[in-house]
């Protein structure tokens, strides 16, 4: 099947490119290959934040999810690829591997220092790719349009998004663990309030109250780490 490659990072230009790419894929009956490249370059958090704001990355948006939902609405089949490495290099490599007929990407038209600092992925891809490249330079109107679609997607999702989370087995297990913890905490507080003498009994060279307090804190940390380990494993598996 023919396919169009859409690299996206969730930035505003990428969202506009997503709208165009879905349109093109629909017209041509092609599959949309959605690519997200996670940069390996060691970036301290503050650089990442600064970059997010320079690219006007909408606060909530996962570019991949946006592309998937938009494509689903237009009945365009999709495939998601997530790579690590240098952005331009991975785009070119993926286009070759997937045999894409077209790469659609947005350019952020950065000015001044931001341009110097961030460089241009689009420029590199156009220069080095053997595949045809469509570079989208979003107009103000197109940005508005793309962002309004984001709002639609989001407006529809809250209830669904919560359900997707609360329906997982992982969340159910979390609720059980929560119930168990609350029972333990309540027992501790009630014993400490109404059965104070019990807390004075000697235990492990200390007393029952101190030992159970320390155990409760350690149990909190242990539960958190254990649950996270389990949830992380489940997420990877799915």
């Amino acid at each position, binding site marked *: 099947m023919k396919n169009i490659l859409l690299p996206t990072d969730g930035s505003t230009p990428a969202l506009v490119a997503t709208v165009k790419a879905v349109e093109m894929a629909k017209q041509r009956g092609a599959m949309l290959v959605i690519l997200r490249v996670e940069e390996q370059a060691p970036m301290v958090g503050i650089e990442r934040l600064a970059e*997010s704001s320079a690219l006007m990355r909408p*606060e909530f948006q996962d570019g991949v999810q946006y592309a998937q939902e938009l494509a689903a609405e237009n009945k365009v089949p999709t495939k998601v690829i997530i790579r690590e490495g240098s952005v331009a290099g991975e785009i070119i490599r993926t286009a070759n591997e997937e045999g894409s007929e077209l790469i659609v990407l947005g350019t952020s038209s950065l000015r001044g220092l931001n341009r110097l600092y961030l460089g241009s992925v689009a420029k590199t891809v156009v220069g080095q790719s053997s595949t045809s490249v469509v570079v989208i330079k979003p107009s103000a109107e197109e940005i508005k349009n793309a962002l309004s679609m984001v709002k639609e997607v989001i407006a529809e999702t809250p209830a669904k998004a919560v359900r997707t989370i609360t329906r997982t087995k992982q969340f159910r297990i979390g609720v059980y663990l929560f119930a168990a913890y609350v029972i333990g905490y309540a027992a501790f507080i009630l014993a400490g309030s109404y059965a104070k003498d019990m807390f004075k009994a000697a235990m492990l060279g200390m007393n029952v109250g101190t030992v159970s307090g320390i155990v409760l804190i350690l149990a*909190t940390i242990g539960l958190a780490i254990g649950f996270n380990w389990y949830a992380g494993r489940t997420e990877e598996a799915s």
Partner: protein
Amino acid sequence: MAEIHPLSLAIFIAITLLTLAISIYAGRRVRTAGHYYVAGGGVRWFVNGFAIAGDYLSAASFLGITGLVAFAGYDGFIYAIGFLAGWIVALFLIAEPLRAIGKFTFADALTSKFKSRKIRLAAAISTLVVSVFYLIPQMVGSGSIVGPLIGLDYEIGVVVIGLLVVFIVATAGMVSTTWVQFIKGFMLLIAVIALTVGVLVAAGMGPFEFIGNIISSNITLPSGATVPGETFMAPGMKYKDPLDFVSLAMALILGTAALPHILIRYFTVPKPADARKSTVIAIIVMGIFYLLILFLGLGAIYFFNQGITGALNPADANLTAPLLAQYIGGDVFYAVISSIAFATILGTVSGLIMASAGAIAHDIYAEVLGHKSSEKRSLLISKGTAIGVGLIAIVLGILSKGQNVAFLVGLAFAIAASANLPALMCTLFWKRTTENGLIYGILAGLISSIVLIVISPTMMGPDALFSLNNPGIVSIPLGFAVTMGVSMMGEGSAANSKTEQRRAEPEE
């Protein structure tokens, strides 16, 4: 007036400059409300985890609990356990679903189901009340420790801290707030570890042996009275009324996950899974913190009983941690710990001002009153509001000088648990929730908890109409009951347009 401590002042100035530099650097690129309120949603979970800890561990936790353990033994430790326990609610029930529905503020999350201005207004008011009640003790704390620690007057302390926070939040909002909280969380962790090691080394005992030693010896309290160690290390030194204590414990566990300045931190990470991971990091950091704080407090009372009267100040429990540091590591350590106490206030106050500014500028001004404006203008309005809230905080801090405002933190937790938690839980997990249910639930929780505090012994003395100091045990169930009761009643009347709106949603 206390004399100036040059070393403390120097380290304090260094921290201040570092904070300003971060704010200026981060502020250059903040262009939209999204960057301002939630740092573009691009904070990594590890950073956010430390920032949550830095947001939550206020001066009340660091200075307050250390003092409480030194002065009231086991009851102080129970406080620490309660502060940590609330995070279990956040981890298992709130973090991930909340990230899925929230945008900038707590009210955004509640209005994800019903696009209701009334809900938004109720949620914004509750956010403001909780944040202001939390904010006043922080400002008073900053003013009253600045004298003994650095040697500045109360008013100067409040103004300096206030202006610094205004600068942090006005330059880059959540971006700089995140970094201040991250650095503070990290420094606080290092500080308690260093102090604990110092206590155990100076005492020449292992951790359990040390606690055992306290239990088996007679303890002379800072007040001069002597009690057996086994009484000191059992409940009842401070909390005489068990029911009052149960009420406080309820407010602590249920209030944490409903504090607006904590909830907004969850909107700064990209995905629900990141919200969970950052909670786990925060629980690890805070768990270590609350466990070790026991040794800080006990260390102070132990050395006090060894004849080192400088290890605590009988007149001011809040100075316990810095004085302990001075005994263990001399003036340098004292200066470092004092400065960390300031950084602690900076981080928490920044978070509170962000939450309040969001409630005013985003919820009330832009959404409820409908003043939609361009990104650039709404960013300007947000910054202006943050500055306004900061200046009000300074005024409130100066006006409250000498007042005993520590109970306000407990009240903030109780209001959050009574007004915010029922609304949040029902929005997330109960499909039959109605618009009116949320509105009346928030108002009932808010009003009942404030009224019960006004008629409590703290405010009215021994003749109080309500015998408990913490309203949680009454107002939290009331908040849930009203939210659910009104929702179920509303369902009965078919003419209720809100019900239709709910039915219009696709059923699964």
